[in-house]
């Protein structure tokens, strides 16, 4: 297993933005997804959202990202509350990898740079060290369909990282992966998330993943989504992932969150990735 300290070579802004939502109410397709929802994420913090499927977690990320405005309530990223301003501060990593099949892996990863007007060669040069670091060396020129699911997800993660945005919104980034690949990526991701260079909101079905990756875990209720409880993750005990997730404090918290979710009716672990949100 590799432990990689990302952040040192990454030319990312050191000042990052907080995320705050107050009194968010939103309907989608005639369904009331939120009716007065509050969330505070401090700058540089990682918060995971867990909740029954269909409780509007993905919708919340889109609202924060500024892809749409809530019907009511106020969302601020940094001190900006307009959708366009939020969009300029947030990067969203969707559930599916959303790689463009007509571009090579490295051009996909560097998409944010060329979108901003960088020359393709410069963008590739900037992305190349990250390919090395994320175990993608040698696959720079591969098309997405030639990559495994785990590799595609890593490229998608690099693309999000290279956007240079302060706030990363990750929507079940590992849901489509097998357990081993998922655990590997969690360990790869860990350092680049928790170094405080980004504010991260992570949506996941996996309580273990939430507790492992995030500083705090927000447990959401069934629709319309309310914040049931916000739980501080236990301090990391032991070096490896398997040591951490088997520590007593960790498993106790996991069981508590799971029982909270079970009271909501539908367990978070029973539904498949891509189920209706």
């Amino acid at each position, binding site marked *: 297993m590799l432990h990689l300290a990302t952040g040192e070579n990454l030319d990312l802004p050191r000042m990052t933005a907080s995320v705050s939502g107050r009194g968010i109410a939103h309907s989608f397709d005639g369904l009331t997804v939120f009716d007065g929802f509050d969330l505070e994420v401090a700058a540089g913090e990682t918060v995971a959202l867990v909740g029954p499927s269909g409780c509007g977690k993905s919708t919340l990320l889109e609202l924060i990202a500024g*892809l749409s405005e809530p019907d009511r309530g106020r969302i601020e990223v940094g001190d900006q509350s307009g959708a366009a301003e939020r*969009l300029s501060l947030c990067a969203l990593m969707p559930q599916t990898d*959303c790689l*463009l099949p007509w571009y090579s892996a490295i051009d996909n990863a560097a*998409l944010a740079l060329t*979108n901003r007007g960088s020359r393709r060669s410069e963008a590739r040069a900037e992305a190349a060290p990250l390919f090395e670091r994320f175990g993608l060396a040698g696959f720079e020129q591969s098309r997405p369909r030639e990559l495994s699911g785990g590799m595609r997800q890593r490229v998608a993660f690099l693309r999000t990282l290279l*956007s240079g945005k302060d706030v990363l*919104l990750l929507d079940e980034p590992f849901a489509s992966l097998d357990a081993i690949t998922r655990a590997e990526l969690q360990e790869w991701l860990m350092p680049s998330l928790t170094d405080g260079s980004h504010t991260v909101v992570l949506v996941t079905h996996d309580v273990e993943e939430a507790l492992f990756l995030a500083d705090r875990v927000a447990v959401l209720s069934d629709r319309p989504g309310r914040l049931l409880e916000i739980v501080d993750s236990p301090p990391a005990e032991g070096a490896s992932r398997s040591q951490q997730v088997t520590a007593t404090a960790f498993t106790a918290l996991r069981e508590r969150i799971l029982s909270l979710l079970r009271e909501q009716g539908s367990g978070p672990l029973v539904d498949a990735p891509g189920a209706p949100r």
Partner: protein
Amino acid sequence: MSGRKGRPGRALDWLAPLALVSFLVGLWQLAASTGFLADRLGLEEFLVPSPAQIAEVLWQDRALIAENAWVTLVEIVVGFLIAVVVGLGAAVALHRSELLRRAGYPLVVASQTIPIIVIAPVLVVWFGYGIGPKLAVIALICFFPIAVNTLDGLQSVDRDLTRMMRTIHGSRSRIFWRVEAPTALPYAFSGAKIAVAVAVIGAVFGEWAGADRGLGFLMLQDNAQLETARLFASVFVLSTIAISLFAIVSLLERRILRWR
């Protein structure tokens, strides 16, 4: 025509049609050269030429046929290219504007319902005997499959991809060139392949309405003068042009759509 590289059936792709065509031509040769066909139809033998006779005429009159084929080829290629430009432009315009799509789509469909054989003589009255009316007829015939297919492609863009682009500094034009256009390209090629195959028919109609050269013109004359063998020779050349152009578009498609 899709790429089947590396499959053992590759040789079969051209062997099978070749065998079938050879068989049919052989059958025709037999029926014509024995006088069976003419007998059955109650016609003079020269009106029912055999493939060998057609080939002979094709060789004898090669200069005349080539000269007229060149005229028709130019008409087809230019008319087709006009349709590509106008068709792609129309598809993008209709895609961009909901209002334009609602207003313009029926018009696009209507363009295909125009009976070409009726409109062609009118175009000749309007634009004269030159290349203009032929280009108009060909472009009109080719426009529809290109515009409709490309529009379908543009409309089928994955919303997740455009949303992803918006969160990573993707401007409207970058989203178009990087997401929408590549998504629509395979559709546009499908349309172009249909268009290039029917372009030949457009050229013949255009020439029939009024022309003093071209394969369509030559066919009309040969028909009137009962030069049936040369008429068939022209049909053969026309088909060859259509098949070649189709193959060129298919090749281009495989070259450009590398990611598929």
